[in-house]
């Protein structure tokens, strides 16, 4: 239990950092900044969640998987709230129009719905029934990675690193499924 609490505190650090940057120091472009921090955190935690699943036979951290996954969803929620409240300024019609019109935005929104589904069905009572559908996390990983790359005007080393991690996860999973890799 204690370890779970430490984990929660660590997972809250990006939020503390974000709030510190926004309200104690000055951030030039706050809306963009909220997108960057919450988005990168959500994506990193998503990578971490799948890594826990894939490596469970080598290192068993499975009991922390739900907490990490849940926090990925938490940061995705903040990301979404930033979109609806600050960026779209609560104009829901505009938010929907933008979603339908722009691949960059609908890829992000589809990924969010996948995470929402996983968050709801991760409760103990539902998980046994739905866990087999939780493979959609790989779809979410692909979509969010593409969405993340599309948010940039040009690709820099940082984005390439995210893409590389995504590539490793996808290839690793494929090798694992096809029994070439026995971990």
């Amino acid at each position: 239990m204690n370890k779970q609490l430490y984990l929660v505190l660590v997972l809250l650090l990006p939020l503390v950092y974000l709030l510190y940057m926004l309200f104690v120091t000055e951030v030039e472009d706050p809306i963009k900044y909220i997108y960057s921090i919450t988005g990168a955190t959500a994506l990193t935690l998503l990578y971490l969640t799948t890594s826990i699943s894939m490596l469970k036979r080598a290192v068993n951290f499975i009991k922390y998987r739900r907490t990490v996954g849940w926090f990925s969803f938490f940061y995705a929620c903040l990301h979404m709230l930033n979109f609806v409240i600050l960026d779209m300024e609560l104009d829901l019609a505009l938010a929907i129009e933008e979603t339908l019109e722009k691949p960059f935005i609908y890829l992000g929104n589809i990924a969010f719905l996948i995470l929402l589904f996983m968050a709801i069905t991760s409760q103990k009572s539902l998980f046994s029934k739905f866990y087999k559908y939780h493979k959609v996390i790989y779809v979410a990983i692909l979509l969010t990675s593409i969405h993340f790359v599309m948010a940039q005007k040009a690709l820099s080393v940082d984005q390439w690193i995210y893409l590389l991690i995504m590539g490793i996860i996808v290839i690793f999973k494929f090798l694992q499924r096809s029994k070439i890799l026995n971990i």
Partner: protein
Amino acid sequence: MNYIKSKDWELPENFVTDERLFNERRKFLKLGAALAVSTAGVMDLAAKEFVPSPNLEYLKEPNLQKLTLNSYEQISSYNNFYEFSTNKKDVKPLAQNFKSAPWRITIDGLVERPIQIDMEKLMKKFPLEERIYRFRCVEGWSMVVPWVGFELSHLIKHVKPLSGAKYVRFVTLYDPEQFPDQKRSSFVALEYPYIEALRMDEAMNPLAFMATGLYGHTLPPQNGAPIRLTLPWKYGFKSIKSIVRITFTDSQPLNTWQKMAPKEYGFYANVNPHVDHPRWSQARERVLGKFLKQNTLMFNGYENDVAHMYKGMDLRKLF
């Protein structure tokens, strides 16, 4: 006995405030006052206060439109200058050792008087003036900047373009020793040197401005020292920085961003709230330092000065 008798109005030594403290008394007072307001307020005060002391002589702009200026700190700490880094916050620290003097500019192509001119001489050729311009980045953020410089048209008239000159092409310095992103062998963000261009009538428009300063001070390297273009009715990427070459041509040059992503960035890049970027809307903008957005204006609010140049053009196609 020889001693100096204190006058009765004299205070004992230990009543005297230390000179160092005395000199900093205003700072101390401000700090106290700001602390009383809030912690965020202190940072705000510190951020808004720093402006280097002016070192340029120029004609002040009265700011008749009453635009609210962004702080020097904001303008000089959030920069798109890919030659240094694609991360806007990393540009300033990486640019600190940039050598912008001596600096030579080559003006060539279809002109009567092709020249190579040193920056120092160029600065003396034209009287400097201030222009308070809105600046709108294609990414959706904006700011208001008090530039110092001279009209591009003055320079163009000086070199006398030939009648065949239809476009003006600008090139940024190529120097991998100074620009880390030009030095990379892989994962290079853009193709260098950076190139931008204008149609002749656009270049001659009185709004087209060569900036050599900011807030009355010579440009800091991260903002494009020693000389850059500022085109307030166009997206920021047209306002090319650290210019070394200006060439007059008869055909439309291919600008860097159009070459990189022709579906997303065109030759004109006029600010237009009705034509979206394929990935995001251009209808509204995020002013630096603010949580709330504001409407983007047609031609960034300079419609009266520039709209006539684009009459009859389909701005959806020629974005």
